[in-house]
């Protein structure tokens, strides 16, 4: 035990005294996280169109009109979905920023228009996109008001609305007889007003609906925030900080994959071999150092995320577990590679090269959800993908525990495998 601890301590010291290793393990990841965060954040924040998933559950004129106008609006790119669930999934998968549901109750809402109930439109929005949600809400109001002239011109539909309104006024309990009379009079007046403008084409001056808005009950856009397990991060930094961690783990991996080779070429491996320790002690000491370094990188990246970028961690305890699993996996991998590489050139070339490719396909630079499907499939072969998945779950996705199990198991499996393979590969020259 003492030997293992001594090896771990020694290797951590050496890591911290190598400027290159410190840079790639600790500085570079933070730089990546912050830099990419700003790059991605700038791209998706302001300009561009908002992807809307539209579900038209009602076949009414109002619903159809709203759907058409949404599609025509230059602020939106709309996609139709059959069901709420499908639309919500699209939001989860990051394919749409929000889903707008034009419910069946839209027609009922119209009937209640004059009794102050308003029209209920449901919207499902990624909570990270509250700014866009506000915009969508405003747009929906504007577009809904634009529908009224069309509605007024449709006498049968309006007559139904008016009679429904009359009924509701007549049956309303809280109204005095005078108020009821007044209300009925207003409806009659409105009825005659609407039939007088009946022949006019769609009124679409922005000002008219806006001023009318005070009179008609506002359109109630009921915004439902999709449970925080949105497939899309709250902010670009939510993606880039796990990416930073990936690069940090890659840095650890690089440093430790080369460390055994360095011991070999500097001759210190001979001293280790002469000591009364086994290959398992040696590999374990190094793996523990790599593990600790991996945990330190992650702690550093998350500290920066929390202190400077207001990141909130959904499941802190699970995040610690995930961080541990990720670091463990890379420690094991580093040991496996370290034991096989015979020269420093091999470790630096093959080791760092392989890790670069794995990091890239695992989502190190381009987030997985931006990747073409074949790359996404390929990414299952990269431990980095599993690390990102394991970390994102408790970090911001807030995925249920059951969904976090797979990446954790994969990572821990990789770690054990690497550890054992490394110790075994080293055993041969060690055992003489």
């Amino acid at each position, binding site marked *: 035990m003492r030997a293992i601890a*001594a090896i771990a301590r*020694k290797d951590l*010291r050496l890591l911290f005294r190598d400027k290159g290793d410190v840079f790639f393990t600790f500085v570079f990841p933070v730089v990546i996280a912050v830099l990419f965060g700003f790059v991605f954040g700038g791209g998706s924040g302001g300009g561009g169109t908002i992807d809307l998933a539209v579900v038209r559950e009602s076949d009414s004129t109002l619903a159809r009109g709203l759907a058409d106008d949404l599609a025509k609006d230059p602020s939106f790119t709309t996609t139709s979905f059959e069901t709420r669930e499908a639309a919500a999934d699209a939001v989860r998968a990051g394919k749409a920023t929000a889903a707008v549901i034009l419910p069946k109750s839209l027609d009922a809402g119209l009937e209640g228009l004059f009794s102050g109930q308003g029209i209920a439109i449901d919207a499902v929005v990624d909570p990270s996109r509250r700014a866009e949600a506000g915009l969508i809400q405003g747009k929906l109001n504007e577009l809904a008001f634009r529908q009224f002239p069309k509605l007024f011109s449709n006498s049968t539909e309006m007559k139904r609305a008016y009679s429904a309104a009359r009924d509701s006024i007549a049956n309303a309990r809280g109204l005095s007889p005078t108020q009821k009379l007044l209300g009925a009079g207003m409806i009659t007046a409105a009825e005659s007003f609407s039939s007088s403008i009946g022949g006019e084409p769609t009124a679409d001056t922005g000002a008219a609906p806006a001023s009318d808005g005070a009179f008609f009950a506002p359109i109630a856009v009921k915004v439902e925030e999709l449970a925080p397990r949105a497939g899309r991060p709250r902010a670009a930094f939510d993606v880039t900080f796990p990416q930073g961690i990936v690069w940090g783990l890659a840095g650890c991996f690089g440093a430790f994959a080369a460390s055994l080779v360095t011991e070999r070429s*500097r001759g210190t491996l*001979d*001293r280790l071999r002469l*000591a009364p320790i086994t290959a398992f002690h040696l590999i374990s000491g190094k793996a523990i150092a790599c593990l600790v370094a991996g945990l330190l990188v992650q702690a550093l990246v998350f500290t920066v995320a929390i202190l400077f970028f207001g990141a909130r961690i959904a499941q802190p305890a699970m995040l610690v577990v995930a961080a541990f699993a990720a670091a463990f996996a890379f420690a094991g991998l580093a040991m496996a590679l370290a034991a096989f590489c015979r020269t420093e050139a091999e470790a630096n070339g093959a080791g760092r090269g392989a890790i670069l490719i794995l990091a890239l396909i695992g989502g190190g630079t381009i987030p997985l959800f931006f990747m073409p499907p074949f790359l996404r499939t390929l990414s299952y072969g990269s431990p980095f993908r599993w690390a990102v998945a394991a970390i994102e779950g408790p970090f911001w996705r807030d995925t249920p525990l059951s969904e976090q199990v797979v990446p954790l198991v994969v990572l821990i499996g990789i770690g054990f495998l690497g550890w054992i393979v490394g110790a075994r590969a080293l055993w041969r020259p060690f*055992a*003489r």
Partner: protein
Amino acid sequence: MLALRDIRRRFGQTTAVDGLSLEVRAGEVFGLLGPNGAGKSTTIAIATGLLAPDSGSVDLLGMGSPSDPKVRMHLGLAPQEITLYAELTARENLRFFADLYGVADARARVDELLALVELDARAHDRVSTFSGGMKRRLNLAAALVHDPRLVLLDEPTAGVDPQSRNRILELVRRLASEGKTVVYTTHYMEEAAKICDRVGIVDHGRLLDVGTVAELVARHGGQSAVTVERDGVEQRILTADPVAEVARQFTLVDGGADGGTGPVTGVRIERPDLETVFLALTGRSLRE
């Protein structure tokens, strides 16, 4: 203490060690003297179990092969290369090796060793800032952390200044006086002559002869040379007893046919040494 029996080891076409046998006795400083490429380091690597011989056997302390950790606990090696962590301090290096061996009271032991190799003043400096001599001394100290009974020093004076060299030689004698057995390889015959109780002459992976320096010289050194000068003329005379020859020369009036005339104006005695022994054994000079 250490017995090598008919060790052979090839690297591709080169035979590094070619049927070498030797026995190192407890408490002696045993020198392996031979030119570069003679197979000294390979022999050491096999003796410590770092390298497997193609054939032959190694026995340490009568306990068996050093591939057994219990056996190799008793040996300490200072390799020919400086095998230290350059970015750790002197103290951190020794402490690490002490921890590897599970040395009790490692802190005190490290202090003791730093004092022994006179590096206590630089204990907290990184090895990368050390001079060649300082690195050598620390390299040696690292072989001693676990207080081994057998210490193998592979060219411990390579690349050091004369002052450091003398310190190292003193240190080796001191280890011997403390009862340790030392195997010391070198290609400097002066060092071997100065500190080794017995010397083995190696060349081309073979042990040509073993013995005390006096024994080796007596066996292979041949006669001493006495050079007598008379009136500017030098005469070289080979003899088994140079002192008697010098005395005889002083009684002569002149040097005869080969020598000068008149009284002796100068005398020089050349006794055979390990260099002569090596030349006699191999037909080549050690210094080549």
